[in-house]
């Protein structure tokens, strides 16, 4: 395996210092979070930085906070393993903890960060669909100040986001969810561990328990378009309707029509579309199973943390 060509490593103590280092040193610089994408790019894809600015010594970038008005913030340098094992995340958004646990191995998840994963904008990122159904936003620090962007508008294309050179992603913000909000994430992949998704489907839903009526729903898909995406047309089918297996089936078909997968080494586009149809239905039925009896497609995949 190729070794990195010489480059400088800076370890700033604050975001302002990090941005200043980046500005002062000019082109050829990369911000370093967990390194599980950047080091691979250097070793496998010939990326040759002149310098990297390591963000790990900036204390304010790490950690998960519950804010009094129901928001939860996740610092961009929080590791996937911290999210997977966090009491707050497992208690409030178990499907987000599960999606983090789907990434790589424990060794990788001890390094990989949620901010690095979002900034890298891989279409198949497992955490992205889960964050999309939570209506998450990202906070970006730039010279003009801070900017908050909806995650749905943050991704622009494979590996591309709205961030400009020198911007630092500092926080993921999750708005309050209703107490009866239920979420589900299904990663459909060839291997159970250590693999990328053929497709990833997340569903977040609020159902009126007595009338079985869907009051709010979000569906997000991974690995089936240039960016992680919301399936708005499928959502519209479900809103204010009674959740039944046949309606879930129709929503799956709609999501399958909406997505724009490519054929690659993992799977053909046609297969991905079919798997979106099936897994959207399954995710919907699993998420709604808490409200509606006999709806669950199957026992939840029993995940251990």
């Amino acid at each position, binding site marked *: 395996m190729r070794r990195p060509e010489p480059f400088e490593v800076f370890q700033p103590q604050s975001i302002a210092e990090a941005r200043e280092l980046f500005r002062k040193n000019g082109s050829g610089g990369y911000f370093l979070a967990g390194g599980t994408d950047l080091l691979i790019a250097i070793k496998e894809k010939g990326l040759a930085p002149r310098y990297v600015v390591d963000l790990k010594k900036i204390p304010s970038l790490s950690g998960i906070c519950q804010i009094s008005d129901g928001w939860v913030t996740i610092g961009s340098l929080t590791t996937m393993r911290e999210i997977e094992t966090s009491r707050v995340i497992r208690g409030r958004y178990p499907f987000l903890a599960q999606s983090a646990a789907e990434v790589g191995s424990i060794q*990788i998840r001890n390094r990989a960060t949620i901010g690095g994963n979002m900034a890298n904008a891989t279409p198949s990122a497992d955490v992205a669909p889960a964050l999309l159904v939570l209506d998450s936003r990202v906070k970006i620090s730039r010279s003009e100040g801070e900017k908050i962007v909806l995650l749905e508008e943050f991704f622009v294309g494979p590996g591309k986001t709205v961030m400009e050179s020198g911007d630092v992603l500092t926080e993921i913000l999750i708005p309050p969810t209703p107490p009866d909000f239920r979420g589900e994430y299904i990663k459909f992949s060839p291997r159970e561990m250590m693999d990328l998704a053929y497709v990833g489907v997340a569903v977040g839903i609020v159902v009126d328990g007595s009338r079985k009526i869907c009051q709010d729903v979000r569906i997000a898909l991974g690995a089936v378009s240039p960016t992680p995406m919301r399936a708005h047309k499928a959502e519209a089918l479900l809103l204010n309707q009674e959740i039944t297996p046949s309606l879930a089936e129709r929503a799956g078909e709609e999501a399958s029509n909406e997505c724009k997968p490519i054929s690659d080494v993992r799977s053909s586009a046609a297969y991905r579309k079919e798997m979106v149809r099936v897994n959207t239905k399954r995710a919907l039925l699993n998420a709604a199973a808490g409200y509606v009896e006999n709806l669950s497609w199957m026992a939840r995949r029993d995940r251990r943390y």
Partner: protein
Amino acid sequence: MHTKIQIRLNGKIQTLTVPPFRLLLDLLRDEIGLTGTKEGCGTGDCGACTVLLNGKPVNSCLVLSGELDGADILTIEGLKIGPHLHPVQQAFVQEGGAQCGYCTPGMLMMTKALLEENVNPTEEEIRFALSGNLCRCTGYAKIIQAVQIAAAELRKSGK
């Protein structure tokens, strides 16, 4: 292009002057001479290079020396307790949890990390924890038995 770092390596504080772009794996093997840590894939897929960084298992092939100032690193060479094998090492020897042995240092470090968090793991939990450690001899059955024996030993000794 060199940077000065202070690390605690297998319990000993060391001050080193290293190229910041040097991988932790290469720092250990080529500059310090601790060759127990192995390189497999070099891309974080196989776990052969697993070491504990600040108590947590990581792939040392994806860590830069320039990130390490103040770090606490434990490698396979530091696993022994005085002159005695660690119960995890003892169990792998006893159960034959190694064939060619190349993945073994990584397996042992990951097992130590698992048992520190959970001293009574189910087989599923063991498989989940070791999913980032590949054994291409495919000797997983004995490895998992060894982890179970080590866990029982650690429970008995209350460690």
